[in-house]
């Protein structure tokens, strides 16, 4: 803008453009009033600047939409994803697995047609579940059982199109944006007079297609709907004039009915009305369509993986894709650990396997059927010699004991209000930084955030205890392994032996004793079991198991547990073990997830006597110990 004769064109903001035009006009003397808001020239400048701003903004938006990273319209993002060969997920209908038995001896076989309805109710709202394919079963003598029948929540819809090549705009659109495309069946009928029907399959790999391949392609189009299209007669078989394209699919309420468990048939099936319906698996799997963030993240990854699972990142991507309820996923190869149902996840190598741990959005572990389904879905993309194994995530709880000092002259809040604020800070950090795979608990970050909670907080001492739970099998003599995978605090052999070492447990009872039992350790690698007489520990076993301080693991020898005490004041089926870690930074290993146990986390605020100028402060000031005291939770 130094040279008034030159029009600066780098600005697109309205006021900047207008200023530049004014600078430009300074070079002439014909019109002098351009700088007064009411003048005719100013109104002309408004028009020019507005127009420039408008076009500049338009260009900016246009340029943004041209790239996957910066586009914001769904249609643009989906289109970019398509060029990368990425198929965007539609919403998913929840599905349940049922055993349906027709109580009849009069039929040798029975057929349950696609669209057969089952009713259920969740939170006082009725939902309808439907089958999506014809199923036939044989009579066993007194009944016709349809076992492991998959039913989807929603309405079974059939849409028909008559192919008309003279209509250049004809598209085979699934007209509802709540359609689950995984339930889609595409049938092509030759014509209205020739009712021969052919079921087309969804294309998975175009390399093996011929001009006779009966496959369909699917893509998301505007407004979140999906469009089915066919080959051109060269890549794969084309549809011709008069063909009738029949689309059958489920329109769903997405995740609303996840968890529905009791199902009843609504009408007779194949004329039989004496029907028994039992639920094998509750409704699950309902999900929204793929989000824009997810498409932006996954489309390039999908392209990079080239439709194959080779690296652990590939497995993460495919796990998310094949199991839409995935919130977080962790994958590790067999070389860095293994899983054995009897001992859990250990560092023992097991080559030729890949372990996939999934945290579901529902918070529940995957059911056996979901795991089996995912493994079989993954087989198509897998390297042949590798076996994928789905394991549940393990949660390691962190119990914090925080004492903070605050300057009461700098705040009107009482210590109880500040304690609540600090608890909220901890909850926030728990929600944003933890609760997922590979997220490390960093002690200094936590203490820093606690200090930053309020300007009156001067310092804090925060101690860390780890907790993990296990579910014992009652009345069976079984050993248990609990892996914390973080080094335990054991500065010397027999550390804290007399006061119970660093291990504690919640209570339980064992066979041959009516006393409530607990575990502790002797600081020398032995797990001990005791009961309390008053406050004195009476040991029933000095070698109830072993503790590996360096590996951070506890092995409980074979014990017959008969009952379990309450945990956190409520009846429980789990026993909680706690341990003091050597480091206050905690790392989640493999399938572990860290989470702060807010029930047992204690926050205490104290007025800082020095800061408020208490005359006796120099002698009465107390500090909190940074050493974590072994305490039973």
């Amino acid at each position: 803008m130094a040279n008034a004769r030159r029009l600066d064109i780098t600005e697109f903001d309205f006021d900047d453009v207008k200023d530049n035009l004014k600078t430009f006009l300074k070079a002439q003397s014909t019109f002098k009033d351009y700088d007064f808001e009411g003048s005719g020239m100013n109104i002309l400048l408004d028009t020019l600047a507005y127009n420039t701003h408008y076009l500049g903004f338009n260009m900016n938006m246009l340029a943004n939409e041209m790239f996957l990273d910066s586009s914001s319209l769904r249609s643009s993002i989906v289109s970019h994803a398509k060029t990368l060969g990425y198929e965007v997920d539609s919403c998913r209908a929840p599905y349940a697995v049922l055993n349906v038995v027709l109580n009849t001896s009069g039929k040798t076989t029975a057929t349950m047609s696609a669209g057969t309805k089952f009713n259920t109710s969740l939170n006082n709202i009725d939902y309808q579940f439907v089958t999506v394919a014809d199923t036939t079963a044989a009579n066993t003598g007194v009944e016709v059982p349809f076992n492991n029948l998959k039913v989807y929540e929603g309405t079974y819809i059939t849409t028909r199109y008559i192919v008309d090549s003279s209509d250049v705009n004809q598209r085979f659109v699934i007209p509802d944006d709540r359609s689950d495309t995984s339930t889609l069946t595409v049938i092509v009928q030759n014509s209205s007079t020739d009712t021969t029907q052919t079921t087309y399959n969804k294309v998975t790999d175009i390399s093996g297609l011929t001009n006779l391949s009966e496959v369909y392609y699917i893509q998301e189009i505007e407004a979140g709907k999906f469009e089915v299209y066919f080959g051109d007669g060269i890549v794969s078989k084309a549809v011709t004039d008069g063909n009738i394209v029949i689309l059958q699919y489920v329109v769903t309420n997405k995740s609303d009915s996840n968890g529905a468990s009791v199902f009843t048939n609504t009408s007779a099936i194949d004329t039989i009305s004496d029907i028994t319906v039992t639920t094998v698996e509750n409704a699950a799997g309902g999900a929204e369509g793929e989000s824009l963030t997810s498409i932006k993240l996954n489309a390039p990854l999908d392209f990079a993986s080239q439709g194959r699972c080779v690296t652990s990142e590939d497995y993460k991507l495919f796990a998310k894709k094949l199991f839409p309820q995935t919130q977080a996923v962790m994958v590790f190869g067999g070389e860095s650990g293994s899983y054995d149902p009897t001992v859990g996840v250990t560092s023992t190598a097991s080559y030729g396997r890949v372990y996939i741990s999934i945290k579901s959005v529902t918070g529940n572990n995957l059911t056996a059927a979901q795991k089996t389904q995912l493994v079989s879905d993954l087989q198509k993309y897998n390297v042949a010699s590798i076996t994928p194994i789905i394991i549940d995530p393990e949660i390691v709880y962190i119990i914090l004991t925080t004492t903070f000092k605050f300057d009461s002259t700098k705040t009107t809040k009482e210590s109880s209000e500040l304690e609540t604020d600090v608890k909220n800070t901890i909850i926030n950090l728990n929600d944003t930084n933890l609760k997922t795979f590979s997220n490390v608990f960093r002690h200094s970050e936590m203490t820093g955030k606690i200090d930053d909670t309020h300007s009156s907080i001067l310092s804090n001492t925060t101690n860390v205890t780890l907790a993990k739970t296990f579910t014992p099998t009652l009345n069976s003599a079984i050993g248990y392994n609990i892996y914390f995978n973080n080094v335990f605090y054991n500065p010397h052999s027999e550390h804290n032996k007399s006061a119970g070492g660093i291990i504690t447990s919640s209570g339980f009872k064992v066979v041959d004793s009516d006393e409530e039992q607990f575990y502790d350790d002797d600081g020398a690698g032995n797990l001990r079991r005791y009961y309390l007489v008053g406050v004195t520990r009476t040991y029933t076993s000095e070698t109830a198991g072993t503790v590996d301080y360096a590996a951070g693991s506890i092995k409980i020898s074979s014990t017959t547990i008969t009952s379990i005490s309450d945990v956190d004041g409520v009846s429980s089926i789990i026993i909680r073990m706690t341990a003091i870690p050597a480091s206050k930074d905690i790392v989640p290993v493999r399938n572990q997830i860290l989470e702060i146990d807010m029930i047992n986390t204690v926050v205490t605020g104290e007025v800082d006597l020095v800061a408020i100028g208490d005359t006796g402060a120099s002698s009465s000031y107390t500090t909190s110990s940074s050493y974590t005291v072994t305490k039973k939770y």
Partner: protein
Amino acid sequence: MAITGGWRNEAAFLDAQGQNKSDRSVQIYSDLDLFFSHNNNTKDVNRIYDAQAVKRSIRNLVLLNTFEKPFHPEISSDVRATLFELMTPVTAIILARQIQDVIENFEPRARLVGVKAYPDLDRNAYDVSVEFYVVNAPTELVELTLPLERLR
């Protein structure tokens, strides 16, 4: 801004639309004539000068409603809303005050003497009289008369 005939005070209506030229030799203000009148000598669009340019500017400001100026809703008198209020002497004072504010805020060339709004009940209109000095001609009192009615 169509000019309609049949006004009882046509001179007032045309006041802000005249082409009068200052007879002073140095013209400080010169503006585009938004009526785009044709100058037969130069074959170009006419320019307007000094007091007349300021009059035009004041008229433009008074007739601006909120949000009519792109990105600057504050540059407006918003008399339109007031014109649709019940016609009372109080409303006339409010109207005059709005006009006074917009001139004082956004027309630095005018040193305002006073604004008066006369309600014309029969025609549902106001005759607004604005008196001001143009800052570079402090001896010459300029009077601008503006008819304001709901439908323009």
